[in-house]
């Protein structure tokens, strides 16, 4: 008998989704209670995850198709926390657009479930199932503000391109299956060797599909449009949560089934990383819409995360995970600020709308200052340490070119972050924005800013948690 306790979080969250759907059908005006219950469900799931799986070093279930190890439990917890925070700060935004419905939390929960399955997958089929579950939920979320043209456009675009990438991914999976005779990661790992050139195609297809999901250059085209068109809270969700899951899967693929083929994929990852870092930095300079700018900046940040993966060392993987965790916090803070730019039911999204913000809203501007300098990677803020760990791992492998290109692109990236700071602090002021924000929004902004600002006092804790992850 399998130890089902290990998948209790997944089981619990599936049951909650079904229950919430039924509740929504039978009870009128149940949006509020659904929201609260889903928050509660995420919380419980997180607690179960910590309780049941955090101390597990490595266990497999269901014919080794599901793996529970320290990476999966840590990433699940980050995913859950991310989902929780998105839900918690969404409500006032959704109410403004009159889309405060029960479907929203249910969709978020389902995509989280999909991600949790992805994170734990040790088998091509389980992985694909999780991927599709999360993707389908995300398509709907992107179009969630269905009365707006842009939102529908975003959803459709995302759907078409994502379906294409899923197709590539599946084709790659079938090639890999053909060569190894199994869908199980561990078996594939033992069967594969680098002599088959067709196999390289399989790996490339899989990597392309995954690169699309994390929007690495050159498979990033969808990101700016989708980020701009989707409702802001959904954009926040896009920039944080699916990336965590996709990154985990990336790590899992590279270091379990393809471990023996490092020579084949390392160049690809280095290329993706450099292209993303450089392109993300350069393309963001010309943007005028904050959400588009965040899209490009997130492409750049994914580049740094990939730089850690390209090292083929445990330290590199750990640094990538640290990077993505810190990035999640910075993103949350940035979007909390964005959600505060509101005047009478209208949310502002252009960079120019920030003009002279520091006159009327000194505290909000200070938070933005901290967040933007941190995103630019200036010490002593958290963003610097994220980059520092990555480059430490990169330089350990003597990959000087990657490190220097990466650091030079931080200088380019610093330019557009500085431009926003300039607009906030040096330019003429606009009218005041409303200040009656929900308590949760203020809370998330305050906490995340403090975390960014004071991370340098206790940098060891995060490293300690992450250092338990030893994939290789």
């Amino acid at each position, binding site marked *: 008998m399998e130890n089902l306790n290990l998948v209790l979080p997944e089981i619990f969250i599936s049951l909650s989704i079904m229950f919430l759907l039924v509740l929504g059908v039978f009870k009128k005006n149940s949006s509020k209670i659904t929201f609260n219950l889903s928050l509660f469900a995420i919380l419980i799931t997180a607690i179960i995850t910590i309780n049941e799986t955090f101390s597990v070093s490595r266990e497999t279930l269901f014919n080794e198709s599901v793996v529970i190890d320290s990476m999966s439990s840590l990433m699940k917890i980050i995913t859950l926390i991310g989902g929780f925070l998105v839900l918690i700060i969404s409500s006032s935004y959704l109410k403004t657009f009159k889309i405060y419905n029960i479907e929203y939390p249910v969709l978020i929960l389902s995509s989280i479930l999909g991600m949790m399955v992805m994170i734990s997958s040790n088998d091509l089929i389980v992985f694909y199932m999780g991927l599709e579950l999360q993707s389908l939920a995300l398509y709907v979320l992107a179009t969630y503000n269905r009365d707006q043209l842009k939102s529908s456009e975003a959803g459709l675009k995302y759907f078409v391109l994502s379906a294409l990438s899923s197709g590539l991914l599946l084709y790659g999976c079938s090639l890999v299956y053909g060569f190894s005779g199994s869908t199980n990661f561990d078996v594939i790992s033992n069967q594969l060797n680098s002599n088959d050139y067709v196999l390289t195609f399989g790996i490339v297809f899989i990597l392309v599909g995954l690169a699309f999901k994390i929007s690495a250059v050159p498979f990033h085209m969808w990101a700016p449009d989708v980020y701009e068109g989707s409702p802001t809270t959904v954009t926040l969700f896009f920039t944080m949560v699916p990336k965590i899951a996709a990154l985990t899967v990336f790590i899992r693929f590279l270091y379990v089934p393809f471990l023996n083929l490092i020579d084949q994929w390392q160049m690809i990852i280095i290329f993706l990383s450099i292209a993303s870092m450089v392109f993300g930095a350069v393309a963001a300079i010309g943007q005028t819409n904050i959400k588009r700018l965040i899209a490009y900046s997130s492409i750049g940040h994914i580049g740094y995360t990939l730089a850690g993966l390209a090292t083929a060392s445990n330290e590199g993987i750990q640094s990538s995970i640290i990077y993505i965790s810190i990035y999640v916090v910075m993103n949350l803070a940035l979007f909390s600020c964005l959600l505060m730019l509101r005047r009478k039911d209208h949310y502002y999204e252009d960079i120019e709308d920030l003009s002279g913000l520091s006159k009327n809203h*000194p505290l909000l501007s200070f938070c933005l200052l901290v967040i933007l300098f941190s995103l630019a990677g200036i010490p002593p803020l958290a963003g610097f340490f994220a980059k*520092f760990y990555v480059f430490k791992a990169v330089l350990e492998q003597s990959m000087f070119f990657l*490190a220097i290109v990466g*650091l*030079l692109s931080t200088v380019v990236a610093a330019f557009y972050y*500085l431009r926003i700071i300039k607009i906030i*602090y*040096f330019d003429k002021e606009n009218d005041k924005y409303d200040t009656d924000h929900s308590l949760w929004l203020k809370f998330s902004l305050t906490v995340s800013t403090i975390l960014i600002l004071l991370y340098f006092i206790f940098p060891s804790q995060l*490293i300690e948690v992450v250092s338990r992850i030893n994939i290789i």
Partner: protein
Amino acid sequence: MNFPILSSLILLPTVGALFLFFTKDKEGNNVTAKYVALFTTIVNFLISIYLWISFDQSTSNFQFVEDRTWIEGFINYKVGVDGISILFIILTTFITPLCIISVNNSVKNRLRDFLIAILIMESFMIGVFCALDLVVFYLFFEAGLIPMFLIIGIWGGPKRVYSAFKFFLYTLLGSVLMLVAIISIYWIAGTTDVIQLYELGIDSKYQNLLWLAFFSSFAVKTPMWPVHTWLPDAHVEAPTAGSVLLAAILLKMAGYGFIRFSLGLFPVASEVFTPLIYTLSVIAIIFTSFIALMQEDMKKLIAYSSVAHMGFVTLGIFTLQQQGIEGSIIQMISHGLVSAALFLCVGVVYDRMHSRMINSYGGIVTIIPKYSILFMLFTLAALGLPGTSGFIGEFLILMGAFKDNFLVAVIASLGVILGAAYMLWLYKRVVFGKLVNEDLKKMFDLNRSEYLILSCLAVPTLFFGFYPDPLINTIEVSVTDLINMHNTNIASK
């Protein structure tokens, strides 16, 4: 464990800034905010004086060392001072209160935020001079960009945005290569602790590249020709207090870095690249002196003179002679005092006439005599007249240079003449001559706070000019030890 005096020096200004951050920003509160900031910085100054008194001059070991684990198994938070760094710390704590007194006239809006920026800046600057771990050093070195960017950008002149961006991006571009070098040192030597690195030494086959990476950062910050172009822009646009901090302290970080890291960690490479430094320094001294002669804007002229003076400093450091290095340190301290004073002098007339152009002044000696006397004193100190601190520095540097390379020393000596030319010509055009503008008659002489600031700067300038022993005694043992270490490293290669 003793009282962590260095950490409290670093932290105290931040605490003051936090205090200001949580007070309400009302117009009436500005005075209180200023007193809080002033009080904090003066206390800090007194602590640093206490530090100097209890500093043991007979040893070159690092003193008041604090060593705490910061990132497990990787970086320790390690600070300490030796004879070289202690002077820079005192310079910092001495200049900052003067900056705060001077803000009265130059900063009109958001005074509280300005003071917060200055205080945070002070913390970072002291941190740079105490840090005994490369990563900690880098952290403070880079972090200083944030407040300075804001100081130039928010309170600066008309072209402030351009200048602030140029300052930030230039410096950042230089520094990222240093970060690569620091991490590489960690993987090569297994530690980033400066004291341990001094003992271990770094394999000479890596030294050249590492030296160049550090050089890229320090050269921008110094600033050396040809990457000096950010400095005139930043100086011209920054508010007076910002220019003072920039000239007096920020530029010294690089000179300090050259001595502490480039010489100390990469002796072989320093030897290799000495001709490069000589060339760039000599170009800086001669070329920027000529540029300074051509300037119409007073602040720009002083900015270019800073580049020339820093040229002397880099020249002195890489003579690798006792006199040269001692001279460089004294020149840096002296330049810290004198350039600060000169920027304040420009600030004084700018506050009254709102013009920095030289041709809008002339013949003001009869209108504001007290000002003219003090301005005269600092002009003479800037050109290195015997009896001022500027002389001691330049003299020692040239002495070291003559020992090492005759040609370079001769060319550099020409720079002294050029320096005298542009400074005296500036003084002549501004203070003497015909009264060019009737409005100038409305100018009033120095008020109490200006008088106080300028005399505070005049006293050490003269005192150390006549009696430099306290400075030389403090640095002597450390410099001797540095040179001995350098020579043994070269010999053992």
